[in-house]
């Protein structure tokens, strides 16, 4: 039996099928739980941008927003864990998952929270380097992909799992590129949708939209940040599903799926 090489496109195809099966209603959980965190991130960026070089003098005020953002971060990671479990169950069973999705193993979630916080820490600590966030995003992807494989509490085990699956670095880098482009396309689509809505109201309802013209323009930083958050929220379920499928496919030999397929193939051959 020759095992087919792991291709990025096949993983993305499978991820698209998984999302189509599990999206209703489970994608709503990941989107709804990530909104508070995204809004607080926007608030933080806006405050920092307003303060500019004086930001160092307002550490306490910024710290309060950062603390709230980290609380919202915990909620958003729980939503991601639920969605990742829905994706894995959907892929394993080939059907829409039921209520068992809510039963996220506690040890797996706390382990994931630890590595996700570590990824966030890496992201902020290396934000200025541009290359650092790329590795932080790859780390975060593997963290959600491997989260359900954590069965025992400990600090080393989730990191060992991530190190084990980092052999898929080629696919992870390809995902980064694909989802970077996808986020930009989602951004353009959202901006176009808002503009089309404004144009329709202007064309048919004869409403004075001068104020909305200002609000929905790219000169408005708040609007641009909201569009970015919306684009990220749109792409996020696909990104998580892709990493869950990638880890599943990479570990296919270890979990016995390839043997099972081989056994079915032999059975079919004997039946003929």
């Amino acid at each position, binding site marked *: 039996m020759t095992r087919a090489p792991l291709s990025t496109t096949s993983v993305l195809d499978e991820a698209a099928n998984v999302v189509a099966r599990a999206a209703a209603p489970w994608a709503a959980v990941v989107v709804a739980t990530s909104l508070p965190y995204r809004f607080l991130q926007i608030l933080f960026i806006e405050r920092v941008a307003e303060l500019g070089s004086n930001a160092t003098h307002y550490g306490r005020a910024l710290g309060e927003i950062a603390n709230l953002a980290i609380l919202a971060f915990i909620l958003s990671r729980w939503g991601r864990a639920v969605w990742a479990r829905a994706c894995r169950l959907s892929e394993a069973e080939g059907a829409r998952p039921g209520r068992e999705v809510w039963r996220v193993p506690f040890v797996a979630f706390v382990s994931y*929270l630890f590595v996700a916080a570590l990824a966030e820490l890496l992201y902020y600590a290396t934000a200025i380097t541009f290359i650092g966030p790329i590795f932080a995003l790859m780390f975060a992807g593997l963290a959600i992909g491997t989260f359900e494989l954590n069965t025992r509490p*400990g600090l080393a085990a989730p990191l060992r799992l991530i190190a084990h699956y980092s052999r898929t670095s080629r696919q992870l880098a390809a995902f980064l590129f694909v989802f970077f482009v996808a986020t930009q396309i989602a951004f353009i689509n959202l901006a176009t949708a808002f503009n089309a809505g404004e144009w329709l109201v202007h064309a048919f309802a004869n409403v004075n939209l001068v104020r909305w013209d200002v609000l929905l323009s790219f000169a408005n930083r708040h609007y641009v940040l909201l569009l970015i958050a919306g684009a990220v929220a749109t792409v996020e379920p696909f990104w998580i599903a892709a990493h869950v499928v990638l880890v599943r496919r990479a570990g296919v030999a270890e979990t016995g799926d390839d*043997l099972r397929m081989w056994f079915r193939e032999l059975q079919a051959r004997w039946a003929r």
Partner: protein
Amino acid sequence: MQRHCIHHPQRLAFAVCMTCRNTVCQSCATHWDGIYYCTTCLAARRTASAERGSVAGWLTLAAGAAVTLWLSARVMVWAGALIAGLF
């Protein structure tokens, strides 16, 4: 590639136990929560679940997660102020 069940050498392998990596036949493999386990490992897993892991493991993990989250908030402020100062 001809692998056989570790408990029944006359039977062809059906799956690999995710914990011990041994090949097992269809009657020895249990599909639980989307993953295959052999009967021995499944029993061990159930016992481990009942014990809820070691106390030390839980304390380390909880402390590690709390410290990393706290540090993330601090580094978020530090990075924000640093980047704002540059532009």
